């Protein structure tokens, strides 16, 4: 389903804008509980590109679907909004976000009928699980892809590297790791808290065909997914900005998880709309 024409790119850009508005809206609706908005905003284009241009969802065979596993589980809000945009979640369902008894919490719970492949939350666990899924799909002879979205902060976890080693050991060419490289973790810049630099070199050294790209450019992301190697596992290091699109959130560690006031909500929506209209010019 890989698409590459300008019209489609424009359409995914527009969808990404709608997803950002929805993320802000749901964060505001959650009121005092807040949401992981920073890391959700950084992963919008990655997830939108995946679901609107890369992933194969074969309606006739759920078994043969591509699996997207959100290992940075705190970006569940972004994933929910993207799944809503492809029609796997309804507005009514997602409006229950962070409500008592809701299926849609800060961290997703596995429900493959809705595109939620993994119960995320504990960092590092998604990628390790994805290795088992990739081995299983290979053993079953399914010709599909397993996409895993990691955070750069998440790469502090030892389990990530145990999993990456295993991917190369079994040369899982059906495996693509994407790092939402937004340079921030809860306590501050990754370069200051735990410097994982250079992720490109590390993934390359672990045997991955690694591509570094602008994680907010649909065009570049589509290009990066299109350059997939068939002989090696793949990795995409997507350079992103935490809190992307909202000036007072961008590159601010305190927006890893935050609560929007009425004024901040209005400002955020205004900024996103302004950004969208300038972009279109």
């Amino acid at each position, binding site marked *: 389903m890989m698409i590459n024409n300008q019209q489609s790119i424009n359409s995914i850009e527009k969808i990404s804008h709608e997803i950002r508005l929805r993320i802000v809206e749901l964060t505001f609706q959650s009121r005092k509980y807040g949401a992981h908005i920073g890391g959700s905003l950084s992963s919008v284009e990655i997830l939108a590109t995946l679901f609107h241009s890369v992933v194969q969802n074969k309606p006739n065979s759920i078994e043969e679907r591509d699996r997207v596993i959100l290992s940075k589980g705190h970006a569940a809000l972004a994933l929910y909004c993207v799944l809503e945009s492809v029609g796997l979640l309804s507005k009514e369902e997602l409006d229950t976000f962070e409500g008592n008894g809701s299926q849609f919490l800060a961290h997703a719970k*596995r429900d493959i009928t809705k595109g939620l492949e*993994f*119960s995320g939350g*504990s960092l*590092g*666990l998604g*990628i*390790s*699980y*994805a*290795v*088992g*899924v*990739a*081995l*299983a*799909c290979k*053993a*079953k002879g399914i010709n599909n892809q397993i996409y895993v979205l990691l955070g750069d902060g998440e790469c502090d976890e*030892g*389990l990530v590297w*145990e*999993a990456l*080693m*295993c991917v190369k*050991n*079994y040369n899982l060419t059906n495996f693509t790791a994407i790092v939402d490289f937004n340079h921030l973790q809860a306590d501050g810049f990754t370069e200051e808290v735990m410097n994982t630099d250079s992720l490109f070199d590390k993934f390359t050294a672990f045997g991955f065909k690694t591509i570094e790209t602008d994680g907010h450019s649909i065009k570049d992301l589509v290009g990066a997914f299109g350059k997939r190697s068939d002989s090696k596992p793949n990795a995409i290091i997507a350079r992103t900005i935490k809190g992307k699109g909202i000036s007072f959130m961008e590159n601010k560690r305190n927006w890893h998880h935050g609560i929007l006031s009425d004024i901040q909500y209005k400002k955020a929506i205004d900024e996103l709309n302004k950004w969208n209209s300038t972009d279109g010019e």
Partner: protein
Amino acid sequence: MENEAYFDVNAFASLGQSNSIFGVSLMDNIDIYPNIKVVTSDMALAAGLDRFRYLYPDSFYNVGIAEQNLIGVAAGLASEGFKSIAVAQAAFISMRSFEMVRQYLGYMHNNVILVGLNAGFLLKFFGNTHYATEDLSLMRGIPGMIVLSPADAGEAVKAFEAALRTDASVYIRLTGLKEAPIVYKEDFSYEIGKSNVIHEGDDITIFATGSMVHQVIIAGDLLETQGIKARIVDVHTIKPMDVDIVNDSKHSKLFVSVEEHNLIGGLGSSISEYISEFTDYPPLLRLGVKDAFSIPGDYEYLLKQNRLMPDLIAEDIINKYKQ
């Protein structure tokens, strides 16, 4: 039971628990369950999996010395419909991988059979880093987990085959020396959650699990010479707990639990949790590993230190019984 063509006590006794499971039973069952996938963290040789690896390379994965990833890979395979078996040292599969087991198996309901090798003090001179004396407590604390603790090699095979038939995650704790004496000298019936009475006696009831069942049988003979008649129960299932056997033993003057496990959180704890809700049960004497790290030595040295040799078990029971 329908899947079991034979039950060769002597062959199992000479192989020990792990080799009986992976060298014999697994070979028989791969035909019955062709979707078995065995995953290990560099323990194929130690577990007796080498022949299986050689004969069924497509059903075997080695993730290297990476117990956290072991559980992730096993769970991922299970999520795609495979009958997944994860094999590692009991200490590491229960402790290092604890959160993975809780998340992937417990919370996400991916059914995996975990086989914990060398539980208790079996790794003798390796020291406390390698002892697994908290595994029952940890595994029991995960919602939905079935926790099995077989008493000898034959029962380990029964436990494994019962686990294969079960639609749940199961932790199988392997204890006892390879040359450990056999408890079951002939074929017997095994049902998860239903304890086996090894010996009848009216005065006291001793609940034992794993390696301690045999110790308690000898201790029972010593008690008999002192005029104390003990009912001896092999509690091969730690969870779900067999409350029927506890209720059925209510008439005893004393309950005793014996386990090669920390006194906190294992068999004794589970019995006391249950009977503490009532007033008409006898007192429970809990024997097991004291809440301290042991001084390493040979197996007997470690058991003696924790008063888990038959004569010491009998002595502690007599002292309590006379009170």
